[in-house]
């Protein structure tokens, strides 16, 4: 019988399967290298940032650039320190204005996005209009908004809303409209009604798109409120900057820019954090989402 001729492998070939000490140390080296790489990646933006500040300071001092053209970072820092209270009060005002506009943008953007994404009729009826609307430069709208809502905070809220609403709506709609037919069929095969399909597949599927849009929307939201404040504000960082600029207090204008950037980046970070917390499934838990892996 041929079959009987099969022999068991000698035991030492099995032993080769086990990890030897050398393998383990190699493994440890890889882990250490990965750790170093991750640490480098984390400090990289800070290094670049500090480098830029030093360059800026150096150029200003080297060429003796006057303060009312380009103040050095140290001067801007000192200005922030000196005008701390008015900056804080105005920043707080801008922050709240922005968040209110942003909140409205979320509510309406999500609602409209879901409607557009889940109904062919709404899609064809509204989507072209939305695109057309978005190509209007919003700056041109501010004077009209001022006529409607008066000088001050309401106009800023509306501007902030108008600018950030669009990316949210479009992204959510795209997320729902591009649901894989296979995933939809899983629900359809169970006899699910359209609303249930949107709830169980459309919405979860659009969340990565939604969070991606949030990161764009929050920064545009700041842009909107500050824009309105500079044109027709009585308070807020935008107003502070325009007043400072009319008095040629250029360092104070720069201080406003810095404070705005800090708020904007902080909100961006919050949005990014929520994103990684809630939709790790979209990156299959790998987090590192560059296409090339480099």
């Amino acid at each position, binding site marked *: 019988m041929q079959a009987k001729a099969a022999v068991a492998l000698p035991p030492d070939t099995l032993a080769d399967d086990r990890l030897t000490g050398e393998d383990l140390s190699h493994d440890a080296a890889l882990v250490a290298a990965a750790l170093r790489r991750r640490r480098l990646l984390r400090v990289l933006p800070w290094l670049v940032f500090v480098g830029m500040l030093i360059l800026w300071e150096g150029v200003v001092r080297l060429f003796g650039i006057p303060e009312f053209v380009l103040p050095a970072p140290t001067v801007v820092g000192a200005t922030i320190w000196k005008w701390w209270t008015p900056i804080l009060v105005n920043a707080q005002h801008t922050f709240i204005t922005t968040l209110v506009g942003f909140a409205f943008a979320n509510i309406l953007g999500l609602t409209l996005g879901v409607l557009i994404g889940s109904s062919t009729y709404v899609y064809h009826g509204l989507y072209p209009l939305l695109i057309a609307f978005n190509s209007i430069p919003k700056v041109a709208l501010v004077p009209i908004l001022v006529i409607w809502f008066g000088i001050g905070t309401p106009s800023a809220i509306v501007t902030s809303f108008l600018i950030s609403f669009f990316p949210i709506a479009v992204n959510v709609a795209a997320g729902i409209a591009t649901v894989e037919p*296979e995933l939809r069929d899983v629900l359809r095969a*169970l006899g699910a009604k359209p609303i249930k399909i949107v709830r169980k597949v459309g919405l979860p599927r659009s969340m990565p798109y939604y969070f991606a849009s949030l990161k764009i929307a929050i920064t545009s939201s700041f842009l909107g409120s500050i824009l309105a404040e500079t044109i027709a504000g009585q308070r807020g960082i935008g107003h502070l900057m325009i007043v400072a600029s009319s008095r040629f207090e250029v360092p104070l204008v720069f201080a406003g820019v810095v404070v705005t950037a800090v708020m904007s980046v902080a909100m961006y970070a919050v949005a990014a954090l929520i994103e990684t917390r809630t939709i790790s*499934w979209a990156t299959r838990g790998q987090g590192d989402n560059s296409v090339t892996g480099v």
Partner: protein
Amino acid sequence: MVEPERPAPSAGATGPAFVEIDRVWMRYGGAGGTLALRNTSLSVAQQEFVAVVGPSGCGKSTLMRLVTGLWPASAGSVKVAGKKVDGPLSIAGMAFQNPTMLPWRSILDNVMLPFEVVEPHPGRLRRERALYEDKCRALLKLVGLDGFEKKNPWQLSGGMQQRASLCRALVHEPALLMLDEPFAALDIFTREDLWSVLQNLWLARLPTVILVTHDLREAVFLADRVLVMTSRPGRIMVERKIDLPRPRTREMTYSPYFQEMVQDLRGHIDRARQDEDVAHAG
């Protein structure tokens, strides 16, 4: 492990048809599109277990989609439980050829999905969640997925996802079970284990089952009746009744009757494939 032998429920095949496909045509994508089914008729009795085999691309998955109402037929009529199918059914459980797990849900939550959709479960779900979860866990354990309930779909191998997809198809005990190559991604040993699991589940509740497979032994082992389809555009070419008692055992697969059955089906499939070659040459 001697279980009492039940009479093969295929005796019910003489009863009223549960699934009735009458001269159905299916063409994808308008007038110039692919003709997938041509004048296909078949009927499946209540509580019958039917297997459909046929060369790749002959329209088996298409047939499944028509029966569950996911696609409308181009011509002809499809009836399930005496009613004309004019939209997705809610009495069917379907395991798709690709194990389409929702990637944002854990395996357990994927298997729970039917309970969130199919009446009367959604109303009870909040109160009796634990009960429902236990049921899903038990089923996952049965297919060898215990310990993976909380994992995300992409953390499972293809074959494991397919098993989870099988669980999702039958967890809510649908009256009609549509299985599109549910074991295709599994090794032969796991596969044969799951044949028995599926057979036991079927014997326990006797749903009507339509199983698509490429594995002729699987078809003969599980089905009351095996249907062979021609190559595309597909039609039922031959049907074979399998006269083996239930529950069927692995020993039966070695019997001359079983082997003959497989050989016979094999011959028909070969013929179907040759027809295809001729059609392509012509």
